[in-house]
């Protein structure tokens, strides 16, 4: 069978061109986009080191990068174990908050009453400073459990996930709407075939936004008492004991943890969106 190709050929050729253009430019920009910030970071560290040692800045004001590096080396096993605790709290809270946010948004999209009840509450939750919540939760659940931190993370995560998912569920193209009416689809089918799949990219954007926020929430929640086993509690206790270089070492570990979550969120969004819009399972001819 002859294939009616002209337009599709043109299409795929232009895609090919774009790809190679991106790739060749990506090669140059890829290198420079890595080198530039790395170089800048190194420069900042060098200047920092000079300011502290040559300028004779007192170590309680700003410890030298070498002193911090030394602490990172000395505390490495502790950094890992406390990082795992904080990261675990952030992850549990992220998963719970994500599930709750998506669930609420789907319910709100289907049932008017739920939407009217939940939307203002979730938006108000977005305005809660977690600083205000953390001590309350700690007192409520006691200081020997991880529950308060995970709850704080959950509250922080629910908001962007809900807002973003709800937006995605509202973005149905009118032509799809009419089509489903013409096909006599039930509400359930309408949600399953059109609204949910159409909302997936929005859901993933919500997850990407929520992931680094989860780490921030998990760390800050530790500043308000409870178990002393995470990065946040170590930062505050080291600072309280004037062990500034050690405090900075834990700050560095927090930054790494935040970056990990950020990258994981970004990767998840890219992967899902790409899978959704590339070849589907079982769709081959």
């Amino acid at each position: 069978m002859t294939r009616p190709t002209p337009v599709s050929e043109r299409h795929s050729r232009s895609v090919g061109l774009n790809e190679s253009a991106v790739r060749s430019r990506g090669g140059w920009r890829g290198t420079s986009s890595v080198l530039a910030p790395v170089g800048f970071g190194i420069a900042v560290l060098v200047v920092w080191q000079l300011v502290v040692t040559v300028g004779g800045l007192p170590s309680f004001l700003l410890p030298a990068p070498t002193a911090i590096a030394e602490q990172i080396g000395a505390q490495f096993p502790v950094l890992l174990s406390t990082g795992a605790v904080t990261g675990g709290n952030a992850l549990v809270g992220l998963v719970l908050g994500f599930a709750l946010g998506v669930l609420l948004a789907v319910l709100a999209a289907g049932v008017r009453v739920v939407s009217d009840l939940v939307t203002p509450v979730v938006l108000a939750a977005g305005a809660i400073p977690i600083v205000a919540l953390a001590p309350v939760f700690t007192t409520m659940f006691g200081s020997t459990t991880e529950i308060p931190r995970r709850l704080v993370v959950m509250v922080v995560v629910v908001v962007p996930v809900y807002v973003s998912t709800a937006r995605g569920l509202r973005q149905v193209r009118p032509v799809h709407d009419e089509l489903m009416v013409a096909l006599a689809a039930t509400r359930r089918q309408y949600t399953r075939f059109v609204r949910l799949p159409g909302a997936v990219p929005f859901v993933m954007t919500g997850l990407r936004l929520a992931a680094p926020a989860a780490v921030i929430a998990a760390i800050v929640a530790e500043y308000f008492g409870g178990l002393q086993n995470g990065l946040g509690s170590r930062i505050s206790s080291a600072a309280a004991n004037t062990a500034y270089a050690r405090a900075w070492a834990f700050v560095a570990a927090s930054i790494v943890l935040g970056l990990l979550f950020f990258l994981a969120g970004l990767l998840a969004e890219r992967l899902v969106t790409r899978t959704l819009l590339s070849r589907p399972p079982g769709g081959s001819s």
Partner: protein
Amino acid sequence: MNAVVLADLDKRFAAVHALDGIELTVGQGEFVSLIGPSGCGKSTLLRVVADLEQPTGGTVEVTGKSARQARLDQDYGIAFQQAGLLDWRSVVQNVELPLQVHGVGKAERRTRALELLELVGLSDFAGSRPAELSGGMQQRVAIARALAPSPKLLLMDEPFGALDEMTRERMQAELLRIAGETGAAVLFVTHSIPEAVVLSDRIVVMSPRPGRITEIVAGRRPGAVPDDPEEVEDVRETGAFFETVTAVREALRKGAAA
């Protein structure tokens, strides 16, 4: 049994009298076009038949039932100006959609969808994503989707309106062949005179404010469906074609003057 019977149909929106006293019958397997200036109610008429709008007066009968029952039974297939494919489904999954909505089993609907893709000449693209296809190809997928439940009636609202002239003429020939092969009646909204003339058994000319039928012009000899694209091309060059175009144009002018 007639595909569509409209009697004394009336449709008013808040400030607009969209349809006034419409009487129209579309026979089994008949190809009828609705043509007229913007605002003449041709799209509204189609949407009333599709049960996407409720008439404010008169009766609508689609395949011998109420419009609502015909919709629920998937007695008609519909195609819009936009193909309206679901981007996250493959081409074949898009064609399967109406069958999936009606609970047809997986294997059966796949077989049917592949047959339809063959019919519209897109077998090689079953696994592609809609975004990988050209506008004309997407519209052919939409037509295949409309045909999936083997409807007795095909409703089309300017389906080729967004296509370039060359693609459009090719699609017209394809549509005639498909309508001939499936035996479905077609109610086709367009604002192109040559398109209406090439395709239709009858051309319903409408005028606006209020939306009325001014005249019904006979198109090509009833039943003479050219099954070869070459023949469709030849039709465009015959004297009869130009005579009909002139007749439709005059009817449109008469409607505008009235």
